[in-house]
């Protein structure tokens, strides 16, 4: 084929160019074709993911948190059902019909509800119209559902603390996760807007009880308007906790503490047979229900620190309650016998220092049991010197002072057991006999938490077995299957000769029967215990009473401390009495004879 009226050569010349142009076009289309392959085949999954992400929005449906039960099965922390009215903008006309607004207004009766509805309509977003609907509002809405298009009533679980003040420190509270926590916890499945347990069981068991959030996956268009529901993922309630707490005793302890002279203090009760914590109260308490509201800040501002968990975060000198350790060390270490007698003249001179007894006129001649019952300081000064700091430290540690109890809680303190080495290292000073004298009566650099004292008195009560204190006996899932069970756990033994235990137990009973804790004496059963009135530089003495009952078959080991409350015998022992009375179903005998309590101040 040749062009008309042209030379053959010029057509062949054109064919050469033609070839080149064809190749150029093939190259261009090959290039574009490869790009298409790259986008759709090689990178296809990547772009599909992006397109899915930008077309859907998740509206979170928070999972109900697990329930917290008492040992008796009462619900300490539960969830209450709250009804929320939602507005879905899907398949709506451009403007809200007036009839709809009127109907809604009649049911919900709040001006801002209508405003937010109109706003949601314009922007095409799901709107929470009203929360905490009353039953009547909910039923009216459901009745009118067909007449008011796009309105839906959704159930939501709200955390409900039925005994706010009594269990506040035991369970803690919840509020929204912070930005900083998210940085470190997002890998564990925490997301922005999640609830987070704070303090207490809510925090300690948060991963177990938080449940799995569900949500509505909603399709959104390029303008951000939500167009339809893609799917709904149900939330799963978290695991529930069965605690070892005796709710009745917990409440009595909380109210008794609240009525105490300062209203500040702690009560820890432990079953000495297994280490289960029956009572864990720190006073003043707070209302965890308010944690998500602005009113919660009042608890942060108060001077009496209601958010401070005194059972395990507060450190106090043990005062005379420590004489238990001193006496045990003296007897077990064969440093003195029960018949060891010292004469108390009201004070004790060592070197150029004078150490006073709380009884100014002196106790006179006392043997060890008498001195323990009367809590004579002069006796124990001299006993401590005989025992020496090494043995005092050893037995303190045997009774697990100076280390956290491992109770399920938040930032538990370890306390401090001083020793000559410790003093040299930390204070760059040598240990003086005066330090031993002070330590012997639980003063000086000795610091304990109420929980540690509870562990100590429980160990004494059961004759040497150290149980790990615990608050939760089992965890069950939503179908009531046990997922974890916590059995009593022995963490060690305090090995004292049998007669030492007997003598110690006898002395503890004497304290209640004939000593400083007469206020806790019952006719029907025996209580054994030791009072303490701990000096502190910040104000009035702290009132301690550590005890257990019944003395020969201990079922409860109890620690009571009233911060700046005054004397242990006068303030803490009567408080313990209320708890025992409740526990053993005894009316408090108002006219009980309390010997020497008015002036009792046992140091």
């Amino acid at each position, binding site marked *: 084929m040749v062009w008309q009226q042209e030379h053959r050569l010029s057509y062949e010349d054109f064919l050469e160019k033609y070839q080149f142009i064809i190749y150029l076009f093939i190259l261009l289309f090959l290039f574009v074709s490869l790009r*298409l392959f790259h986008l*759709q085949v090689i990178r296809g999954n990547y772009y599909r993911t992006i*397109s899915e992400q930008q077309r859907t929005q998740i509206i979170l449906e928070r999972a109900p948190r697990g329930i917290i039960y008492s040992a008796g099965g009462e619900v300490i922390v539960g969830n209450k059902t709250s009804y929320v009215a939602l507005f879905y903008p899907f398949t709506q006309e451009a403007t809200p019909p007036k009839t709809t607004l009127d109907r809604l207004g009649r049911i919900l009766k709040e001006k801002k509800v209508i405003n937010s509805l109109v706003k949601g309509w314009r922007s095409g977003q799901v709107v929470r119209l009203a929360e905490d609907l009353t039953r009547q509002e909910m039923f009216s809405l459901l009745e009118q559902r067909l007449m008011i298009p796009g309105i839906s009533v959704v159930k939501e679980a709200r955390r409900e603390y039925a005994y706010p003040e009594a269990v506040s420190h035991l369970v803690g509270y919840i509020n929204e996760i912070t930005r900083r926590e998210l940085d470190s916890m997002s890998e564990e499945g925490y997301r922005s807007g999640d609830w987070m347990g704070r303090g207490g069981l809510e925090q300690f068991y948060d991963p177990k009880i938080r449940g799995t959030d569900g949500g509505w996956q909603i399709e959104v268009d390029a303008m951000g308007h939500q167009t339809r529901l893609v799917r709904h993922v149900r939330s799963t309630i978290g695991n529930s906790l069965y605690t070892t707490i005796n709710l009745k005793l917990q409440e009595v302890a909380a109210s008794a503490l609240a009525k105490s002279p300062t209203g500040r203090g702690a009560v820890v009760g432990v079953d000495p047979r297994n280490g289960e914590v029956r009572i864990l109260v720190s006073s003043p308490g707070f209302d965890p229900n308010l944690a998500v509201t602005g009113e919660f800040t009042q608890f942060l501002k108060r001077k009496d620190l209601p958010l401070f968990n005194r059972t395990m975060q507060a450190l106090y000198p043990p005062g005379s309650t420590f004489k238990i350790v001193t006496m045990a060390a003296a007897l077990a270490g064969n440093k003195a016998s029960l018949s060891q007698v010292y004469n108390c003249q009201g004070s004790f001179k060592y070197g150029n220092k004078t150490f006073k007894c709380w009884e100014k006129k002196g106790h006179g001649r006392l043997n060890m049991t008498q001195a323990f019952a009367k809590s004579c300081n002069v006796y124990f000064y001299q006993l401590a010197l005989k025992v020496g700091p090494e043995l005092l430290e050893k037995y303190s540690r045997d009774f697990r002072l100076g280390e956290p109890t491992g109770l399920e809680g938040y930032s538990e303190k370890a306390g401090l057991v001083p020793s000559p080495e410790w003093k040299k290292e930390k204070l760059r000073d040598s240990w003086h006999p005066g330090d031993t004298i002070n330590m012997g009566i639980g003063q000086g650099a000795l610091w304990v938490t109420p929980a540690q004292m509870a562990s100590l008195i429980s160990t004494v009560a059961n004759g040497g077995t150290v149980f790990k204190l615990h608050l939760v006996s089992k965890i069950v899932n939503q179908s009531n299957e046990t997922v974890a069970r916590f059995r009593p756990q022995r963490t060690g033994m305090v090995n004292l000769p049998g007669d030492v235990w007997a003598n110690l137990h006898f002395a503890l009973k004497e304290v209640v029967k004939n000593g400083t804790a007469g206020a806790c004496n019952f006719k029907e059963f025996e209580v054994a215990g030791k009072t303490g009135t701990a000096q502190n530089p910040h104000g009035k003495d702290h009132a301690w009473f550590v005890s257990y009952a019944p003395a020969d078959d201990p079922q409860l080991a109890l620690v009571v401390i009233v911060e700046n409350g005054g004397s242990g015998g006068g303030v803490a022992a009567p408080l313990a009495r209320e708890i025992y009375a409740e526990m053993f179903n005894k009316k408090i005998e108002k006219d009980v004879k309390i010997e020497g309590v008015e002036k009792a101040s046992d140091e």
Partner: protein
Amino acid sequence: MAMNFENKSSLNRFIQNIDWILVATVAFLVATGLVAVYSATLHYGSPGKFVATQVAAVIIGFVGLLFFAIVNYQFFKQPTWVLYALSSLFLLSVLFFGTTIRGTKGWFNFGYFSFQPVEVVKIIFILVLAGYLDKNWREMKYLPKIAIPVLLLLGQVGLVLMQPDFSSTLVFFPVTIILLFAAGVEPLYLIAMMLFGSIAVGIPLFATFLKLQPGFLGAHHYFAYFVKATRGGWPAFNILVAVTGSLFLFWWLLNKFRVKIPFVYFVTLAAIIIGGSLSSAVVQKSLKEYQRKRLIVFLNPEADPLGSGYNIIQSKIAIGSGRFVGKGLFSGTQSQLGFLPEQHTDFVFSLIGEETGYFFTQLVLLAYFILIWRGMVIARESRDRFGSLAAVGISTMFAFYGVINIGMVMGLMPATGLPMPLLSYGGSCMVSALWAIGILFSIHVRRFTH
């Protein structure tokens, strides 16, 4: 046989000689385009309106196609200057009487529909150029004679730029270069021309680009000097002297090592560089502020992240997320939820990619290539030079339209705003594309007529 052949009516002969592959390809592309436009306008709420308009354009285009197929293409061979005057008149009148849409005064508004004259001008220009080159192909061996087709090009492009419509001018350049090449112009001249052109236009474009992104090169002293040089003055002069100086040094060194290259090449190269740089100053000065602003967004979509940059990103997501078999017709999330911009016009190819997936999209691409390939075959089989050149011009137009549009929606090129012929919604483009195909048919059916 010969007797029978002559006895047949001319209509029969016409039908027998039609390129049925091209017919099938065009029908496939137009049908695909109609379905895609329907899908793209579904979420606007009135897809029927858009499809009806597009169908109307197809009908007008088809009538035109028949007309141009029946009319002997050689009719357009002679009146080159009349055609050129006609298309210039179109472009001039739109500057006076046109309607402005999105900042471009490029439409005649006739009430029921509006018409974009530049779409027709593209085809007239191909005929004009083919006609001129057909008559003067012998002189195309001489450099000065190339000036006339280049001036023809600049005349039309200048008028289009006054609208201003940058994207529409993009196809004029490759069409001119390829046609000159096909007509026998020395490739070296074309390369020199392209070099000159890219220096003259490139420097102002580069300067504008740098103004947009001050941190792009400015960090280094040497680069900073270049940046300064784009604004003219002594730095520019120094660089020019340095470049030409090193060119001559290079030639001298080659000569020393007995590599004999005629001195004239170096002189030409130096002249191109100097000439290009000087004319870049003219280009830079003649750019008006509003043109420069449009140029900025044209060059750098990221300067307008919610505009063109966003468009390209969404388009890539749309195509990519289609994967092998697509999300299903009318069920593309990118398109139906409105993430994909301009989805019935410039980005209709992305919608096809998202909803039908790789296999079908590749098929559409193949069909588009077949269209161009048939155009080239028609060019080869044409009975005269004018027909061959016109067919090459039309094929080139389709090829570059396609590559620029698809390249844009796949993120290979800046967002230019060129539609995809035969697929995109848009009456003027559809009509002019079908008319161009009509001319191809006209060339094809007459290939045996001697």
